[in-house]
């Protein structure tokens, strides 16, 4: 299998765990996998991206522009920031709830994510989810990243099996949180199947 997947968001949103689970699940299925993370200064509230490359023929640790099959964006403007990586016909899973930078509260530019969502609607195929709504249902903001993995699996676009993802979730999250995480994954899976053309 050959797939390029990007996960992006703002430092502190839990993108790294999501990316590690995707990579591990793809490996579990016998694929050659490479990935790359943003580590360092930018983790303090800056823009962060994870690049996951599945397949023998991927050399660069970073996804080249125009080749991502899927972008999972934890924040709408981060989806737009990385839009050039999406390939024609690729799909973006986007959280519509914005993270306002501190500079925004200071300068009041009115950023609320809506222009980003409009732009994305016009320029690529997207699965939109709203973390505020979902976190309320899940009772915490802690499981949103795993919810997004569920959406990814449900959409059928990643080529990575549901069982591989859940097996890795069980490995990566602390024992006592496995059940809530699996519930979050199932909720996401259901959401994702709405967009699965094969179903």
């Amino acid at each position, binding site marked *: 299998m050959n797939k390029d997947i990007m996960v992006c968001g703002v430092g502190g949103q839990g993108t790294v765990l999501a990316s590690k689970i995707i990579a591990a699940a793809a490996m579990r299925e016998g694929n050659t996998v490479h990935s790359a993370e943003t580590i360092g200064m930018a*983790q*303090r509230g800056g823009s962060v991206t994870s690049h996951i490359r599945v397949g023998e023929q991927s050399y660069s640790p970073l996804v*080249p522009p125009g080749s991502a099959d899927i972008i999972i964006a934890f924040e709408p403007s981060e989806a737009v920031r990385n839009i050039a990586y999406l390939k024609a016909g690729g799909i973006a899973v986007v959280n519509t709830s914005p993270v306002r930078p501190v500079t925004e509260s200071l300068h009041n530019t009115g950023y609320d994510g809506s222009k980003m969502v409009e732009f994305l609607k016009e320029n690529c195929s997207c699965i939109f989810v709203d973390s505020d709504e979902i976190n309320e249902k899940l009772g915490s903001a802690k499981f949103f990243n795993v919810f997004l993995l569920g959406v990814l699996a449900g959409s059928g676009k990643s080529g990575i099996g549901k069982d591989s993802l859940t097996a890795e979730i069980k490995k990566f999250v602390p024992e006592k949180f496995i059940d809530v995480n699996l519930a979050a994954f199932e909720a996401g899976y259901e959401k994702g199947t709405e967009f699965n053309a094969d179903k």
Partner: protein
Amino acid sequence: MKEYVMGNGAIALGALAAGVNVAAGYPGTPSSEIIETIAKHPHEGTYIEWSVNEKAAMEVAAGAAYSGARALVTMKQMGLNVASDPLMSLAYVGVKGGMVVVSADDPGPISSQTEQDTRRFADFARIPVFDPSSPEEAFEMIQAAFDYSEKYKTPVILRPTTRVCHAYAGIDAPESFAAKQYDGFEKDPGRWVIFPKLSYKNHGLIEQRNKDIADDFSGCKFNFTCGPATEKAVVASGVSYAYVKESLKAFPDIKLIKAGTAFPFPEKFMLGALEGVKEVICFEELSPYIEEQILKLIGRNHLGIKVRGKLDGTVPHNGELSVSIVTDILSDFTGISADKPADISGIPPLPVRPPVLCAGCPHRASFYAVKQAMKGRKSFFCGDIGCYTLGNAAPLEMVDTCLCMGAGITIAQGLHRADKDAVCFAFTGDSTFFASGMTGVVNALYNEADMVLCVLDNSTTAMTGHQPHPGTGRNMMGNIVDKVDIAKVLEGMGVKKIVTVDPLDYPKAVQTVKECADLPGVKAIIFKSPCIAIVKSGKKCTVSDKCIGCKKCIREIGCPALIFENGKVRTDKSLCTGCGLCAAVCPVNAIGGNANE
């Protein structure tokens, strides 16, 4: 089974596979996870430490290598500046057990002050350097580096860059590791004591030996060519090789020459690879090192080959390379235009996200206390390296200078010499204080400086990922040890006025700063409050109806947990730690939580 690890993890596994006995380092992005991975793996027979700084780490490793042990020392590129004194001399003395220096470069730079190139350092010190292009290759290279080091009795450098350090790959590491057996230190003053005579003699031998290493490198697997014999060829090293491989998918086959060992330059290999080539382009990050070696080679051998790269302006000198940059340049070089993704127009303005101090970060409170205390007085704020460098951003704007680790303390002294009527402050983190701050304080005392030293003691090395340090009372062997007490260190040096204060106790913090600013000589304030990432949050702050929407809290302290919405401020519960600084700032007492209840 394959283990899926970060490039730094691959380097760590490689070192373990090579039987490393002693691993020492000082944290620094992108190198920190090497020591951490060794610590997390079973490592019987391997001693590990976070040293107090890179110079100490280099010397600890050298001592071990004198004894025949295999020693690893890790740091980021600027760490090699700090460790250069021992390294330069060690290059003359040499080692007995294999010693590998990992110095991670950071093109971009992404998390560094400089875009320096460790390959230049290797050349400067006349010691071999390996330049990995991927985590897989880094795993193999570090093992080869240990072997070369032992074979030629010299320290060897492995120079990964950020994209190799932070890339993940599946590594086939052995199930278990065995640390090397070694004899122990044998006294031999003619070998281990550096004197002018020894340096003179060894200098000659080293240059001779480097010719042998260059020949050895010419035959090693890290230097190879691929593709057909074309008249135009591409040379690449490090992660640029990966970018070129990726980019070449869009071009007809062309000769690709991979250079994995920069110094001593594998001339024989390169001469062979360049046979039949008329024009060559070099892709490498940071400095045009390989490009210069090729130019030399062509000059000495009177070859008519045109060389393109950084020196003729084809490839940018600064910043990272990428698949896009390489593709654009290759299109021009080959005259074939590659398919490129269509440009996307109409992208709305994106919010800027500079990194910021976390919500509840005690550094914010320390800076704010000093700022308020010094309002209306001429004062200079010398910053330093760590999370607290982020105190430079609006609205705090409390970092007037920042140079290199430990420099804030001494720059404050220099500013004061030149500008007597300003109150000069130096801010230093606890890890930075131990790494290179202490000598600056002694300098201030001895030379009768006037300054206020602010130690921002958050009980960790936060910026680089929360490593322990001498003030934390934990070490990398998992032992609880006596904490080195910063106040006592200062007292022992002879600082007369030392106050330890909780920066989150706002009125007291301001009072302390005012008091210290008025005294002559060297004064020290230790702002002590743990990093929010290592302690549980307190009761979150809440904003009541009393909020008049003046935004003073946001304008004054810029905490990311404060959000202005519908004419009022609210707190983001997922970020707020309940530090209460906003409550102390609010003019109408609208904010409750830890501080106001």
